[in-house]
């Protein structure tokens, strides 16, 4: 009786999860979507607790309390600039949870474990543990606790391959002989090592793709756990998450014109090719001159990048936008899919700063407007506006879709110094005739520009 009731409740939860994603498709319905997802979760947990009487209820309550004590303050206090780190951390937590349940289930079932269950269990544990260390490294890099540069050394792919081979050999060993418990710790350690090696070799600019891939792995490992536990709700939820990460990863790769394999094994940013030498002259500009350019503009497009988050300039940028609108200019924000450190990062930062979301325009929609745009202001973006992607076949960025700011009448680039972007590639944009460099901290520069408008 209880058994069938719980299954019906799981069906309701699954429906709510699906609706949740459906409603997430547009801003208007997105909040209902989130509530539907929360309701589904509540039903799923309540049904489970009813149907499976806890052996140690105190431990269950304690564990959920710990989760709440850690989770709630993070969600309430986290600055929006740190959302990529939190996302990486949540992938780490989610995949570790799944891997630990898988490990527990192995010890629970041994010695009676059939071939299919053991196969899925092994796959689930490999995926779960590698996603755990991979996401932890991604978190540490994003939080800048370790250097964001790719850690590459000769024979890197060989070492990684060897580690994977060990993990797979242990998995096969366990499938053939599930009672060989000694295989399990070796499998776990090699999966952990592989996740570590994989993400250590990846640079900051590739984080949007990497986070999406890890998202996909975390989801798929949860789905695999569903197979092991014969729990269909877990299969549905894990697969939806896996599909989401997969699509985001594809979008990120397309936005950089690269393949999955290239992101994971390429060690971008460590390439020796820096593209062709750039000819031309850098034209620095003073705040006063930049003000005069903006003052006469009737259309302005802001192109933000990760530097916007670093200098926390989103609020003052919105203020500058408002000042320009008062001055009669049309203002839009050109958003490149891989600007920032995770999919949609710039949109969230600007939404937090109260920029109306209909001003946030995708790259392919803003590009046709570039030739008629008076001024583009590039704030902490580099590779996503690098014209070498279209002009220089030897550039590592060749073929990447960019925001074509160089086509506008004037480009003002806010930049701290002449250091190249995260990919380490020279940017010929800075040497173009219509480009002006406004050196200094982005936030300070924008504040100075606003002051100029107010004093005028």
């Amino acid at each position, binding site marked *: 009786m209880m058994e069938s009731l719980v299954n019906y409740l799981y069906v309701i939860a699954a429906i709510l999860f699906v609706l949740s994603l459906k409603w997430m498709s547009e801003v208007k319905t997105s909040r209902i979507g989130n509530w539907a997802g929360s309701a589904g979760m509540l039903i799923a947990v309540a049904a489970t607790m009813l149907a499976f009487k806890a052996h140690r209820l105190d431990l269950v309550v304690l564990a959920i309390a710990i989760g709440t004590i850690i989770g709630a303050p993070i969600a309430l206090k986290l600055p929006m600039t740190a959302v990529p780190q939190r996302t990486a951390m949540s992938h780490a937590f989610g995949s570790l949870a799944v891997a630990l349940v898988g490990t527990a289930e192995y010890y629970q079932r041994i010695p009676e474990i059939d071939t299919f269950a053991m196969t899925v269990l092994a796959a689930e544990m490999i995926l779960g543990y590698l996603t755990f260390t991979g996401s932890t490294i991604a978190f540490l890099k994003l939080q800048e606790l370790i250097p964001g540069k790719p850690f590459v050394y000769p024979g890197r792919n060989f070492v990684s391959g060897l580690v994977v081979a060990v993990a797979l050999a242990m998995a096969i060993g366990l499938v053939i002989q599930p009672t060989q418990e000694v295989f399990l710790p070796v499998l776990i350690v090699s999966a952990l090592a592989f996740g570590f090696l994989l993400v250590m070799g990846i640079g900051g600019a590739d984080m949007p793709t990497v986070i999406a891939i890890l998202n996909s792995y975390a989801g798929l490992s949860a789905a695999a756990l569903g197979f092991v*536990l014969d729990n269909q709700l877990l299969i549905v939820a894990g697969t*939806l998450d896996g599909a989401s990460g997969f699509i985001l990863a594809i979008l990120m790769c397309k936005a950089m014109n690269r393949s999955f394999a290239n992101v994971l094994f390429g060690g971008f940013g460590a390439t020796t090719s820096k593209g062709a030498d750039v000819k031309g002259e850098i034209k620095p500009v003073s705040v006063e001159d930049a003000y005069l350019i903006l003052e006469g503009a009737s259309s302005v497009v802001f192109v933000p990048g990760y530097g916007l988050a670093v200098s926390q300039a989103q609020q003052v940028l919105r203020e500058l936008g408002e000042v320009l609108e008062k001055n009669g200019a049309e203002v839009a924000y050109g958003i490149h899919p891989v600007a920032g450190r995770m999919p949609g990062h710039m949109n969230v930062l600007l939404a937090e700063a109260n920029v109306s979301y209909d001003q946030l325009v995708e790259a392919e929609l803003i590009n046709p407007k570039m030739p008629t745009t008076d001024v583009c202001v590039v704030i902490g973006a580099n590779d996503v506006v690098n014209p070498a992607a279209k002009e220089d076949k030897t550039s590592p960025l060749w073929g990447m879709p960019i925001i074509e700011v160089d086509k506008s009448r004037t480009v003002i680039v806010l930049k701290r110094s002449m250091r190249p972007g995260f990919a380490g590639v020279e940017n010929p944009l800075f040497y173009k005739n219509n480009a002006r460099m406004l050196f200094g901290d982005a936030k300070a520069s924008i504040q100075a520009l606003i002051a100029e408008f107010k004093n005028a």
Partner: protein
Amino acid sequence: MHENIVPLAINLLIFLLSAFLGLGLIRRVSKLLHTPLMSLTNAISSVSVVGALIVMAQPKNNLILTLAAIAVALAATNVISGFMITERILRMFKKDEGGKAK
């Protein structure tokens, strides 16, 4: 003995249908919302807390109990912070009502 070939086939079917459904749904999500989408799907997939609770119901020994309890804490962290931060992010997305001419 309910673990035979039939549930496996059904589970595979559910997996495939969910995959197609997920790909179809996610493809239509606005690029604006990719960050909250990620925090939402992450919270949803942390329904693995259910799996951990099931294992905690009848653990054979304390190692199993401990592993599952840690998993409950980890997944619960994701569930709580995932849904809460998604709500916080979504509340930020506002459109100017009439104010400015577009």
